[in-house]
């Protein structure tokens, strides 16, 4: 069936099987490889994308249910060469190790900061609760989100 939605502000019309997930469509039909398949069960958070600004599991979202929605993937977060505040903070804090969880973490944090511009540490821990990272121990990831909040406040 045919589905029309906006991906990173560009309208896309795709032919998708009714059982296809948004993650499959992004990766296999649109070549947007930033969202990762960590578990395909909605637990790791590595496939997180924003649907109408809200972080959602790409592996649990059926593509056909996204008709008319606005999807943001990690590829759409920076404005040209200018990184989004959360991306810049991830660079500065040294929070990134293997990087596999980072697209999901960055999008989740971006959405959190959009609704809560000055999150407490507990807000950040709660906000990232659905994103597993096996490298960092979360310390620097949480630092990065709070640093991004400060940077957004100063803009």
């Amino acid at each position: 069936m045919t589905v029309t939605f906006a991906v990173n502000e560009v309208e896309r019309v795709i032919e998708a099987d009714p059982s296809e997930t948004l993650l499959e469509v992004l990766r296999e039909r649109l070549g947007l490889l930033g969202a990762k398949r960590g578990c395909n069960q909605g637990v790791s958070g590595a496939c997180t994308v924003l649907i109408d600004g809200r972080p959602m599991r790409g592996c649990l979202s059926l593509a056909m249910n996204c008709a008319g929605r606005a999807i943001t993937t990690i590829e759409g977060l920076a404005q040209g060469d200018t990184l989004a505040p959360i991306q810049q903070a991830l660079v500065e804090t040294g929070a990134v190790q293997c990087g596999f969880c980072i697209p999901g973490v960055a999008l989740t944090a971006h959405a959190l900061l959009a609704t809560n511009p000055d999150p407490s540490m507990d807000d950040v821990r709660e906000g990232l609760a659905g994103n597993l990272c096996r490298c960092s121990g979360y310390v620097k990831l949480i630092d990065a989100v709070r640093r991004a909040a400060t940077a957004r406040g100063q803009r």
Partner: protein
Amino acid sequence: MTAVGVRLPRLEIREKVTGRARYIADLSRPGMLHGAILGSPHPHARILGYDTARAAALPGVHAVITGVDIGEGLMGAFIKDEPALARGKVRYVGEAVAAVAAADEATARAALRLIRVDYEELPAVLTPEDALAPDAAIIHEGLADYFKVFDAQCDGNQMSRTEIVEGDVAAGFAECDVVVEGTFETQAQNHLAIEPCGALAEVDEAGRVTLWSANQSVFRVQANVCESLGLSMSRLRSMTPRVGGGFGNKMEAHVQPITVALALATRRPVKLILSRIEDFEMIRARHPYKIRMRTGARRDGTLLAREVDVLVDGGAYGDDSPGVLGYSLLMARGPYTIPHMKASGRVAYTNKLRFGAYRGFGNPQTCFAGETQIDEIATRLGLDPIEIRIRNAMRPGDAWFGGQKVLSNGLVTCLEKLRDAVGREHGGDAAPGKRRGIGIAACAHISGLLATGAIVRLLEDGTVMLNTGAVDIGQGSDTALAQICAEALKLPIDRVAVAVPDTDGSPYNWGTTASRVTYTTGRAVVAACDEVERRVKERAAALLECDAGDLELRPGGLVGIKGVPGMEISFQVVSAVSHWREGGPIVGANTFVFDQATIDPKRAAATGLPFGRIGVYSFCAVATEVEIDEATGETRVTRAWEAVDVGRAINPAMVEGQIEGGFVQGQGYALTEEMLWDGGRLANPSLMDYKAPGPLDSPREISTIIVEDPQPEGPFGAKGVGEIGLVGVPAAITNAVADAAGIRLRRLPLTPERVLGALLER
């Protein structure tokens, strides 16, 4: 110093925050097929026959292969006992029995369901005790004939046996005023790199294979694929894209041999990516241990004797098990001077997935037992847990268990700094219904082992290409090695590029394992840079008409005459002349194999130890604060402190990242993570049922304290830090639980049920 000791962002950071980093699942080739693997439904069975005709006939299927299609080759790091696909028998549930290549993943998986395999079930041996019983079913009938790289002492289902003795334990225990004794049990932990294992293989017209895979060593991949498929190593090129985490699981083979076999069968590129469930069931995990330990001390707290015997579940194939056993015994004394030691152990084959290398490599298990007993002795004698550790700590120049002299040793500094940081907050003010306590542990871990190399090339314009073959698995070795190279040549970091690991062009590197890359490969980089410096000076001396001995490197890629400011030329000029006129392109290269002996035969006797030269030592002291819910038994880590002697922190931010990440992985191991078997089948092979720490589980505060006691021959004094942050964590947590509630748990993980049970039994 302008490059070493600096918190530089990692070289590939922008691609990782913008989603452009490419991992194995992101690669594709024209005409590529997709592979899938059929796993065994039985833990132990004879394969009587296959019917693959229906699967092969499914539209879109290009090849169906089984163990009969791949020859007689066997692979294994210590004992060559493992085929790429099961042959004759299956030895664990999930073992690869057949594989399919098809036009897409869904077709490949559909074809798997059409394959029929006839099995004759055999009795399954599921624990090491059962495996070593006299009437146990034999898992490897051909064990005696397998090629082994060491004196394995195998027999029946016993894969290997190791013993190390120093001093006289009987005499030592006779002098003790206090002796503690206990049995400890640890569980299987899954590595859970967020990226599942995968590979992509392509065969060219001449039959040469190019293989990309998620791995920790392109060279171990090459060796394992070639051994198991009977290919010559010159016919296989092994590379790696970005790796989405590896904690030991991607060091030895996973799906690479099968992927190559499918590519050879179809003559098409084949990509094979495991699902999370398959990754749990088919790959490897941390070894379950049963440990009997006895430790004795004088009334003043001086440790005199320890005896330890371990029984290790090795799973169905040898993999790294003999190494893990031997290493855990070498670590069983901990970083203390205990004069009388006896450490022995066996690892047994069982019908479970193969257990293998996992961050800590056997050290977390024996450290858990040893550090528990130090605390028990301290409690019995009324000593402070940090004081008793300082009293018994190895000092610089003291020998490790076995006899190797240890020059760089910041252990006492780590313990003192930890004491200062933690302060005297024992107990604290827990909320009603909660109990709070603080626990300590100390440990050491090696960095070292085996062969490594580096090639440093001065490009025509005076910038540098560094090529080591070391795989950056996310820990940041590309950046750390570039920092070492930049510092050695006094260059800005942006003039150093790092080549991707590629068996065609990189010097040999055993692998990203054993916390070894910064220390061993860093040494090779420094030595290769020394050669570049010598040749740069040789060429510059001719151009400046002076003696090479009068020249010095100056910051920014310049070489000049000592004491004469302004008399200098750039690397660019030197390199251009070398390329186009005289001397030839400047290349520095170095390779070595780590050569400090582990056992000094005058001090200790060892049998069945699979490696004789293990490495140099980093040290660590860790403290945790826990809070126990008295109603539920739930234990949370509220704060943590880790002081680690890393010799020299090449990049302090990345060192902190290793310690913080190691801590939380160790916390998962201590509190929540456990692979459980229902008979021969893994009962919780998914993230739904296997609980690794998330952001809400991590401590609100992890204070890292970097101690720098330089390793004399290390690169700028550096030692390893990859694993040590995890090693002492289970003991620090169980010691904190004992401090909080007076309960002593000797079995991991500390589930709420176990903690509550112990609280009720008090």
